[in-house]
């Protein structure tokens, strides 16, 4: 009996989260002002430490094909892959700031380069 109650709670919370996400105002990720703000955050928070000032550092972003949702989630919740770890930034950065950083990362990634071509 306990499990259905718990699952009902999970579904309710998930629904609220999805609704909140849809309700959020996601900035235009191709807006140069948003990209510039993201670049400033990228440098200030030392993303360049692992990714390089131009995205071509040890964990190279420039050669990757990335999507907005994936980048946002990686920044917000952190990432562990192939033995390397990126810390989570939710609570340190606001959602607005994470979207700005996402915009900058997309601007230097493969997906963006292809689109530009």
């Amino acid at each position: 009996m306990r499990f259905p109650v718990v699952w009902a709670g999970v579904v309710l919370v998930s629904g609220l989260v999805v609704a909140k996400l849809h309700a959020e105002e996601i900035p235009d990720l191709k807006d140069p002002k948003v990209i510039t703000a993201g670049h400033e955050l990228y440098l200030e928070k030392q993303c360049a430490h692992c990714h390089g000032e131009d995205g071509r550092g040890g964990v190279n972003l420039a050669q990757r094909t990335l999507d907005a949702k994936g980048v946002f989630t990686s920044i917000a919740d952190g990432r562990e892959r192939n033995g390397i770890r990126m810390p989570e930034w939710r609570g340190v950065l606001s959602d607005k700031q994470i979207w700005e950083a996402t915009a900058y990362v997309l601007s230097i990634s493969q997906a963006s380069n292809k689109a530009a071509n």
Partner: protein
Amino acid sequence: MKASLASSLGLACFLTTATVVFAADPGAEDPNNWPQYNRTANAWRYSPLDQINKDNVSKLSVAWIAHGGNITMGIQQTPIVIDGVIYSITSGNRVAALDGKTGQQIWVYEPRLDPLTKKVLFAPYSRGVAVGHGMVFIGTVDGRGIALDQKTGKEKWQVQLTDFANCHGCNFTSPPVVAGDILTFGSTAGELATQGKIYGVEAATGNKAWEFNTIKEDPKSWPGESGKHGGGGAWMPGNYDAKTDTVFYGTGNPGKDFDASDRKGDNLYTDSVVALEAKTGKLKWHRQEIPHDVWDFDSPYEVLQFTKDGKDLIVHMNKSGYVFVLDKNNGNIDNIWPISDLKNFVKNIDPKTGELIGRVELTMNKETLICPSTFGARSWNAGAYNPKTGLWYNNVLDFCAYLKPVAQKVDPKEYGTGNTGSNDFGRMVMAPDGRKPGQLSANDPFTGKQKWSYAMDVPGFSCVLTTAGGLVFNGDPMGKLQAFDAETGKVLWSFNTGSGMRGGIVTYAVDGEQYILVPSGWGSYAALLLPALFPQLENVPAASMLIAFKISK
């Protein structure tokens, strides 16, 4: 077998070069064991075992493999081995006891870590455990000390030591030191906006006995408020000298690393060797190696102890690659020499006074080429000294970095950003003269005279092992494990472990058989940063393995 190994130890002592003798008396310890981080209190990483030697090392083969669990940031530990039982720590502070003959798990302990560890800069790795008083001790990545029963793995006590949530995630990434009845824990801090400390804790109870602040309260050394976020800390294990009840630690760098505009003093006790009375934490002496550091040249590395020509000496390298030979009793300078000639941050360090001659200062918002890089002329992976050859073996890093200081504000809710005064930790580049980027170097520890070196296309980042069998073992980031002739540097054996090595290679014996135990699993900040300079590292598989080798019959 024990008798024969003990005889070998005696012979090893007899053959010791010149008048160098075992200062910290490792002969009193069972030669079959690897009982502490650097095996012995003198930090030589030398084993008197000689069953595996130059004549038969080519017959080494895998005895067993054990997996360490989570592979995040690789496997960075130096395992401890006592009476045939291995004590291991892997990602997330997972501790396990393993049977040394089979690798089978005897017990496992995994602490519930503060969720904040997902946000902090230095996590979730650990470089080892300490064993003593019938307990296994760890320092955790959320700033606790924990004691486990050595036989069962059950928790005996725990104590919160760092103010984890309010010190930008300052924590423990290395094991404590068993210093008699006291345990000493050194915290991370160099890149954190905090003050790094060394803590003394009663081994039996976990009660805190004392703390030593690596940031000195002295307005000449730290003008204004600059010391408040001065960094320092001691993020590698110290060494304990039981004869004098002294624990020696090397300390971390001052912050902000590259922007020193608000800390115009010498910034004591950062980049120093400190000698502390273990019972009280009282400072006996200190020797600052890099005053007013602006290049991120921490000094947390191992403190080797010797008695030479009647003098008690310390040999200690910091990240700059300069090796300080000091009087063990007062820190006075006996000699200073560089492990590599690839250096431009100073013209030289005066070998008599320690003065940094011809310092290269950094300019705000401008790149300056500094050699060696922020990885140092050697990273934290320890070297090894063999008394039979009189040589000290180290993985030397021969590459540079462009450093660019920028203005940076301290954000109190910040955990993942370093208090460095920069956007990154340097843009690494190969040496301007085109030399290979790494070498395994065999040097006299007192003069620096090089006997041999082995050039590497990708530099080594594992702790080195040397043995009475006339061997040196070293691992590289690509997974190549090699055995060298300790006298000549000739490669005698090679094996692909499947992933890079970042931890400490050790040896032990159980039931008359000697084993070589190798942590293999590429990780750490080297794995994050180095692919920019060495693209071949991008595809090295991650892992967390302990691989045991023995001579095949």
